[in-house]
């Protein structure tokens, strides 16, 4: 049966929606945060995994999106969804601008540049406390007046699904192919007719827009925003999630976010010791499974129900020997 994995995913999604109200408030919160990270991890995977642009400024865009929406709602009383759209639009423009400024940077230079950018953003939010309430935290109007987390669960679910569908369309289109070509070799991509500068800027703009979407939802869910959301700690968690899952595919990046968020909660009893544990898992992943721990599982899952020959093609990520030797 072709596309069996899609039916399985749809069934799991349907079960999650139907039985969501049976989750305790605590685990529902964990699920909502996991979906928040899911949007961030998949959009960072678009940027770092597909286009090879290893930006450490992704959480800065989440914080800019969050503060923009929160402040616009507070100042002008606009509906929250409009505020969120404004945050997304601003971050698309800012992301494109950052992409343009660092057009000639790759690898460590790009990472350090975007790290610098994210620190500047964080410090501005922390020091301009007349506007942002600084480290005390900005009170943000919540999306729903109810104390139940269930509506937030549904919204987070919808945002994650829509984000994945949109990004999925992008990575499966010729744009996705061009982004991967740029990741592999920019010079060869331009010799092949790919407008490298345009697609690098586009990748930054799109990924930053999704980061802003996640950040603005987070603010209107938690009800308070502090500058630390754009800091290096959050960014490190995001990198760990995406790399452990598999940064070159959207579903594995989301899977990484879910697994790490779940483990962070399960291992809460170990306090700070769980963080070195994730550090070790990250090291082992980089050493032994650079495509991520979930990638082989995902490739096997995708081939469920496929005829054997097609399945072999789906597994082409497995290193193969040179037939000429």
């Amino acid at each position, binding site marked *: 049966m072709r596309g069996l994995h899609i039916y399985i995913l749809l069934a799991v999604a349907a079960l999650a929606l139907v039985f969501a109200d049976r989750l305790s408030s605590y685990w529902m919160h964990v699920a909502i945060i996991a979906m928040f990270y899911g949007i961030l991890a998949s959009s960072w995977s678009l940027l770092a995994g597909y286009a090879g642009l290893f930006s450490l400024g992704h959480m800065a865009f989440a914080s800019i999106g969050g503060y923009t929406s929160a402040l616009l709602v507070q100042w002008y009383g606009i509906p929250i969804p409009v505020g969120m759209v404004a945050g997304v639009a601003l971050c698309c423009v800012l992301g494109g601008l950052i992409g343009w400024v660092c057009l000639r940077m790759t690898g460590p230079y790009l990472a350090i540049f975007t790290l610098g950018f994210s620190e500047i953003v964080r410090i501005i939010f922390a020091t301009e406390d007349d506007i942002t309430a600084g480290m005390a935290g900005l009170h943000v109007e919540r999306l729903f007046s109810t104390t139940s987390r269930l509506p937030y669960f549904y919204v987070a679910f919808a945002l994650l699904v829509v984000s994945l569908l949109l990004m999925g369309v992008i990575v499966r289109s*010729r744009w996705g*192919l*061009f982004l*991967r*070509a740029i990741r*592999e*070799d920019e*010079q*060869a*991509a*331009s*010799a*092949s*007719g*790919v*407008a*490298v*500068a345009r697609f690098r800027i586009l990748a930054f703009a799109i990924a930053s827009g999704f980061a802003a979407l996640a950040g603005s939802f987070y603010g209107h869910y938690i009800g308070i925003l502090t500058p630390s959301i754009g800091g290096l700690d959050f960014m490190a968690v995001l990198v760990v999630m995406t790399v452990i899952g598999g940064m070159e595919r959207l579903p594995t990046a989301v899977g990484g976010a879910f697994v790490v968020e779940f483990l962070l909660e399960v291992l809460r009893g170990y306090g700070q010791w769980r963080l070195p544990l994730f550090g070790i898992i990250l090291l082992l992943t980089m050493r032994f499974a650079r495509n991520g721990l979930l990638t082989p599982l995902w490739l096997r899952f995708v081939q469920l129900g496929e005829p054997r020959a097609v399945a072999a*093609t789906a597994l*082409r990520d497995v*290193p*193969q*020997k*040179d*037939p*000429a*030797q």
Partner: protein
Amino acid sequence: MSAAAELIRGVSLVKRFGGIVANDTVEFSVVEGDLVGLIGPNGSGKSTLINMLTGHLPPDGGEVVVRGHEMRGQAAHLYAAMGVARTFQLTQLFGRMTVLENLLVPGLTRPGSTWRSVVQQARSTLDFLKLTHLEQLHAKNLSGGQQKLLELGRCMMLEPAILFLDEPFAGVHPHLRDQLITRIQELHEAGRTFVVVDHDMESILRLSKRLVVMARGRKIADGPPADVREDQAVLAAYAGS
């Protein structure tokens, strides 16, 4: 030689790297249907010239004209869009993409192209290059010679007016080299224009209709291979290198 048939022209091209003049007022033009061999000792400025003519290196002086359009300040992908394709001295493929995907990239950059037509074109290109059985392999897993063939295929997918091949025979097994030469000859007979840079004199002489020789950043000879081989300046440049 009518002006309309001129595909590319480098006018007084100059390129300096620090104190070294890599190209010193080089004039270079190629007309439709040409098969030019570009030779010269190491460091004579061949690759620099190709990099300038394909938009990968901005000249310090002079001008590149592609099919009558001055290309000053244009990005490399616009050269590709104008029908200028190239390979690289050290093969540059999209290593962690499949052989088929490597060909889809240039095909899909062409305006108005559809996936269906580009996949079809890529498959017939693979067939032409005898690489069909490797379609789903990652490009990095190909042998050196197969990689050179795939790079040629990637150029073909642009349906270019002119192809610059930078050292296509370097490090390639003689059997695959012969295959590469045959493919180039077939493409040339089908109307493609080539500029081939290489140190393999035998292959270059077998292929080219016109030979251009560079030494110390200058063009020192340009003409039919038989004439150029007898040229005293060329003999001196090679003897001195």
